[in-house]
């Protein structure tokens, strides 16, 4: 049973009568037995072609969530290889972020650094299902999204150290992780800014299929956009929900609701804190999932990504998650209560998956320890690499301002500025 249909619908889905022969579809009724019905419900507006769809999530309806069955007699929902892949990815994210904190306090990286500790289930749960051709768009809390997407740890670390070998040549920094070979489209400092870019990537995917007629047997390229609870009150989010649904773009909107936007509690900032509801308001499925459980996230992600790949359109997935550290390394984190922190610390996604793996006998303790050791080595090597890499030279300052450096214009001598040898050295006046 799919996660999307596991949600309990409190009243019958009202499906508008369409033209004869056209099969009405409801994203929530996946089983063929659920025949579309037409009700004259007060909720149905005769003028609207679309039926209002409302769902509650399994978490809210306090149904027993799927995939969390920890009894050893039940079959594991993932294979051993998958489990180890997920474990390794989450451990990589956690260890990397811990190292970032260390390096920051040792003065190796600067500025605003936002760590992802505690939220690994969301990144791993979604990104490990994607192919290289799929795109990921993130926010300033993007180190782990980059790692999950496949950007080497040394490239990310070097970028954080501001070295020329970083994935963005040291020009981006913590909040601007980009990788073209891995289709990581950023890394954005202003919240909400990346969502239109993600929508554009999804538009590109649809365009390639419909206009350029480049078809892939395995479906459209999917874009996954990650952002936080604070962003959900921002206009760009809502505008993009509208456009994505309007054009049925192959995108998944993933809300990492960690309940806090720096020091602003989600409940104090939002009139209706249930973010998943904003999906149906625009006509797309909205699902709430426990973001501390990587298997539950993965289950929902499988469906959301499949929807997008099949051209059925976008989905909004709200992951309830938590960041164990402050908003950034400069945040004293004084406003969050101790009991809230301990509540979520007890639901550490890595500990949870480890428990699951051991209970289902998917791997032994020593194998998991070996993975952790392997990650330790990777991180150490990444730090060494970053440390020993050179900082960008002066000549790099003006590179990459323009894809076509003719954009710097024509100088008084009649030559393009970029033809001046001193230009690349960085000694010419621009």
């Amino acid at each position, binding site marked *: 049973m799919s996660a999307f249909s596991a949600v309990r619908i409190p009243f019958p889905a009202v499906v508008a009568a369409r033209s004869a022969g056209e099969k009405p579809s409801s994203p929530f009724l996946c089983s063929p037995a659920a025949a579309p019905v037409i009700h004259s419900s007060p909720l149905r507006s005769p003028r609207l072609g679309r039926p209002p769809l409302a769902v509650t999530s399994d978490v809210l309806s306090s149904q027993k969530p799927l995939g969390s069955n920890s009894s050893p007699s039940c079959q594991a929902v993932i294979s051993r290889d998958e489990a180890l892949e997920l474990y390794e990815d989450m451990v990589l994210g956690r260890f990397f972020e811990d190292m970032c904190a260390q390096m920051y306090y040792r003065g190796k990286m600067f500025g605003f650094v936002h760590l992802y500790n505690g939220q690994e289930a969301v990144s791993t749960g979604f990104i490990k299902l994607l192919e290289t051709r799929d*795109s990921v768009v993130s926010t300033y809390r993007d180190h782990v999204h980059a790692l999950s997407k496949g950007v080497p740890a040394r490239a990310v670390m070097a970028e954080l150290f501001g070295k020329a070998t970083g*994935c*963005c*040549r*040291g*020009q*981006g920094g913590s909040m*601007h992780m*980009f*990788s*073209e070979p891995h289709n990581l*489209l*950023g*890394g*954005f*400092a*202003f919240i909400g*800014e990346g*969502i*239109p*870019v*993600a*929508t*554009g*990537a*999804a*538009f*590109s995917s649809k*365009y*390639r299929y419909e*206009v*350029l007629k480049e078809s892939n047997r395995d479906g459209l390229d999917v874009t996954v956009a990650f952002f936080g609870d604070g962003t959900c009150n921002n*206009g*760009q989010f809502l*505008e*993009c929900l*509208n*456009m994505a649904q309007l*054009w049925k773009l192959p995108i998944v909107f993933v809300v990492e609701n960690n309940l806090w936007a720096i020091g602003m509690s989600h409940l104090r900032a939002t009139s209706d804190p249930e973010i998943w509801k904003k999906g149906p308001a625009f006509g797309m499925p909205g699902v709430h999932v426990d973001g501390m459980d990587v298997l539950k996230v993965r289950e929902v992600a499988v469906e959301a990504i499949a929807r997008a790949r099949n051209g059925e359109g976008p989905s909004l997935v709200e992951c309830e998650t938590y960041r164990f550290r402050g908003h950034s390394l400069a945040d004293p984190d004084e406003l969050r209560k101790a009991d809230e922190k301990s509540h979520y610390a007890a639901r550490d996604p890595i500990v949870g998956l480890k428990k699951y793996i051991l209970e289902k006998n998917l791997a032994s303790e020593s194998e998991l320890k070996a993975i952790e050791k392997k990650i330790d080595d990777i991180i150490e090597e990444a730090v060494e690499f970053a440390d020993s890499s050179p900082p960008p030279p002066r000549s790099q300052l003006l*590179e*990459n*301002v*323009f*894809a*076509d*450096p*003719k*954009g*710097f*214009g*024509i*100088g*008084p*001598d*009649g*030559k*393009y500025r*970029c*033809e001046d*040898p001193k230009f690349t050295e960085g000694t010419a006046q621009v």
Partner: protein
Amino acid sequence: MAAALQTAALLSASHNLIDPQRFRVGLLARSLPGRRGSIFVVRADGRTSGFFNAKSRSGNLITNAVATKADASTSSTASKPGHELLLFEALREGLEEEMDRDPHVCVMGEDVGHYGGSYKVTKGLAPKYGDLRVLDTPIAENSFTGMGIGAAMTGLRPVVEGMNMGFLLLAFNQISNNCGMLHYTSGGQFKIPIVIRGPGGVGRQLGAEHSQRLESYFQSIPGLQLVACSTPYNAKGLMKAAIRSENPVVLFEHVLLYNLKERIPDEEYVLCLEEAEMVRPGGHVTILTYSRMRYHVMQAVKTLVNKGYDPEVIDIRSLKPFDLYTIGNSVKKTHRVLIVEECMRTGGIGSSLRAAIIDNFWDYLDAPILCLSSQDVPTPYAGTLEEWTVVQPAQIVAAVEQLCE
């Protein structure tokens, strides 16, 4: 002649100076400074056509618009008669040619599809190319501009239309943060070959919010190129150049210039984004202008010529970066500069241009640079007030007289 040789030398030397891997400059399309218009025919495969061979070119094409009578200083048209059209049609022709040439070029904006564009620039394109390629967006400038940027990053070449340039203020976040910056912050990994275009400038009693000059707000954004078209000829050429450019380009059109009529060549041509256009060669004073003010300047020039002055008029076209070569050559010849712009006095293109000329050509100036700009007021609705907001030909005449004393 020297200019032709210089250009030829430039081209042969270009292969040595530029590392193609790094800069990806296939062929530097440079025009010839001086009297002749800036024309190139750049083929899709990078070769230039016979037009380019400077030594064999006989005539040149009309570079000033029909709004002013062709005066004795311009030569007659070249061999092919060309075809006459209005500026908005020229924009459409350029856009359509590029869309035919490259299926990755697409259009997005409000009412560009079924409505054909609020100024009919995209009329007929949606029936021809489909609703996805000529996309009618909801009213969400910031988001659809961002969407255009995301599409550009992933391989498309979108042309985003602001129904009025002023509406793009809502997209300032995306234009500044993403459009201008992402190529740099990604370390050169993603290019953003987007064109953002739309009508701006002071119209006929459109009110303050529909009469904005965004070039002054955008000029500081690093990573952007700004161009302003003023005639059907350069409108089509700049549109094509902007679409072909790998850089993000903002193309400023003017609400009052859409119905200008001109005869343009039948054969394909692309103009250079970074160049200025010599409108009227002269000797006494250099008048630098762009967009609508070009016509106020040419009107003033008629009076000035009658009074015995010989102004040199340059339409700078490239608002960012400035073509310091054409401008510099002019300053070195006349030693007097007048800038006429429609931006407001504070922080406009004129202020930057003044600074650039002082930095580079101070020794050649015989008089302070005069800059005529619009008043620092929100454009009033009343016709009389609006007229006094922008620079009028009489003020230009007075300024030239003052400069040449």
